[in-house]
């Protein structure tokens, strides 16, 4: 129980990382090119005929257009992205959702499945009862339906896999750490499920059983989650935090590998720097091995 006090350790520079081949990384102020034949894209500006980066990130070139994709950024949504968000406001016919983007996203009443999976026109009664479906502070998973001209996102939950989230734990990481995959919903073999929102919000929850899956996500049970499940969830949470602190991409394999390497450690110890380093080291090695 004794408190763990320590002297701060100087930050290490990881030198033994595998060199990313062909990645052009820049810092703000770095000259990207002096060739005037290129077009200026996002994250760049012209200075004395030179193209200079205004953010730290990776240079991306499409024909004549050069842009810099920032490493640390808010969420720039694209159609089809899976997001986890929090309702901040209930308005007429729409909910406002906080999704880690620059502007709050909207979820229209017409783009949700009503409780019980009912398919019908939305009446004015539904409009009055909106707060009964989703109220301020609720967490939802959704998909980006379209992007408005100002960059705000329009979401939809018209599938049974989306909707209101029940009991679980939310972890917030940088959106650039979420690896784009075919699916962002995973039932991990370790006994918990996970939603990796493209916006950097990760939802960890106990794997649902058959019976409570049917309610369409609007009825949540308040039954206490068994201790064994919560241990798995806590361990996963700490592993995801560890991965994000070491700037490792998050996807099912990396999470599972880190979970396995963290398995013989105590849950609370995972967040201690020296143990975290050990876990990440092993995860990294296993990912490299697997990729060949």
């Amino acid at each position, binding site marked *: *129980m*004794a*408190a*763990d*006090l*320590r*002297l*701060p*350790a*100087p*930050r290490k520079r990881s030198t033994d990382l595998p060199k990313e081949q062909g990645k052009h990384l820049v810092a703000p102020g770095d000259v990207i090119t002096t060739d005037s034949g290129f077009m200026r894209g996002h994250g760049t500006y012209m200075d004395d005929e030179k193209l200079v980066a205004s953010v730290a990130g990776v240079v991306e070139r499409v024909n004549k257009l050069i842009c810099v994709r920032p490493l640390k950024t808010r969420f720039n949504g694209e159609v089809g992205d899976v997001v986890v968000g*929090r309702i*901040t406001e209930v308005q007429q016919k729409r909910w406002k959702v906080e999704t880690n983007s620059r502007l709050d996203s909207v979820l229209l009443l017409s783009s949700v499945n009503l409780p019980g999976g009912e398919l019908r026109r939305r009446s004015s009664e539904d409009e009055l009862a909106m707060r009964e479906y989703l109220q*301020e*502070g*609720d*967490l939802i998973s959704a998909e980006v339906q379209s992007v408005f001209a100002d960059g705000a996102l329009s979401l939809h939950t018209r599938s049974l896999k989306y909707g209101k*989230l*029940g*009991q*679980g*734990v*939310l972890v917030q990481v940088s959106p650039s750490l979420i690896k784009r995959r075919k699916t962002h919903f995973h039932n991990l073999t370790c006994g918990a499920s996970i939603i990796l929102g493209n916006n950097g919000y990760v939802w960890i929850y106990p794997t649902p059983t058959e019976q409570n899956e049917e309610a369409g996500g609007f009825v*949540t049970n*308040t039954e*206490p*989650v068994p*201790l064994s499940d*919560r*241990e798995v*969830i*806590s*361990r996963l*949470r*700490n592993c995801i935090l560890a991965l994000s602190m070491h700037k490792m991409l998050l996807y099912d394999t990396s999470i599972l590998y880190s979970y396995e390497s963290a398995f013989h450690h*105590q*849950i*609370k*110890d*995972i*967040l*201690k720097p020296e143990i975290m380093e050990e876990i990440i080291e092993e995860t990294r090695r296993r990912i490299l091995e697997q990729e060949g």
Partner: protein
Amino acid sequence: YLHVALLFWQQVILCHCTLDDLRVDGRSCEDYRYVEVETDVVSNTSGSARVKLGHTDILVGIKAEIGRPKLDRPNKGCLEFFVDCSANATPEFEGRGGEELGTEIANALYRVYDNERSVDLKSLCITPMEHCWILYTDVLLLQCDGNLFDAISLAIKAALLTPSKIPKVQMMEDEEGTTEIELSDDPFDCVRLNTENVPCIVTLCKIGQRHVVDATLQEKACSVASLLVSVTSKGTITCVRKIGGGSLDPESIYEMIETGKRVGKALHAPLQDILNKEESLGKSREKVGFIG
């Protein structure tokens, strides 16, 4: 302050978690996160310390200046507190936003530290009624991630424990009866404060049926009320204070005080150890400071 919108179900899981002594991050109810302590970080102070507890980041600087003793205690020195809430910590502190929290913390610190039982104030007196040392203690909140009081108290104790540069002075009286302050010629001839009884603060947050120490922001958002208990290294309680709007019943207050006493007493020895270790390393230790 620091409003964290929490999903109700997330609260439920947090409450269930505390029941079984397993918190979301895997700690038990009486576990602290690991603490990083570094002293002597600001060169032009008499003593300074920086404490990191999770993402909570506190900088404390103590400057000794000669002043006039307070009228009600003519033969004692005194401590002055000022708490500055940096807008870097959270946007809510911008402008005058952090003032209320700052005064609340400062008032609590006066209650805990500015008395004879905690600090040997008599040794700070130079001549009764006329001159004494005033220890101006400035607390800077650089980042907030819950449990500010405990981190601040650790930082204050660390700053007081380090070889404080309070020079030895003597009062000389010449023939005409005017007094003059004479400073010792040797710059290393300093007074070291007796810090045996300087207490540490333990904040206990009531969540559901249980109470936890070192609550994170999320956990704090779930608690209705918390109790500050300041404990010396001998286990003496010097101050108890309730913060937060909710109410606590006498029985749980008693339990919380008992926990606070046990946890607080165990906090002093590791702090002393780490400071001794830091002092023994002396100049050979690589300073981390703010960039590392």
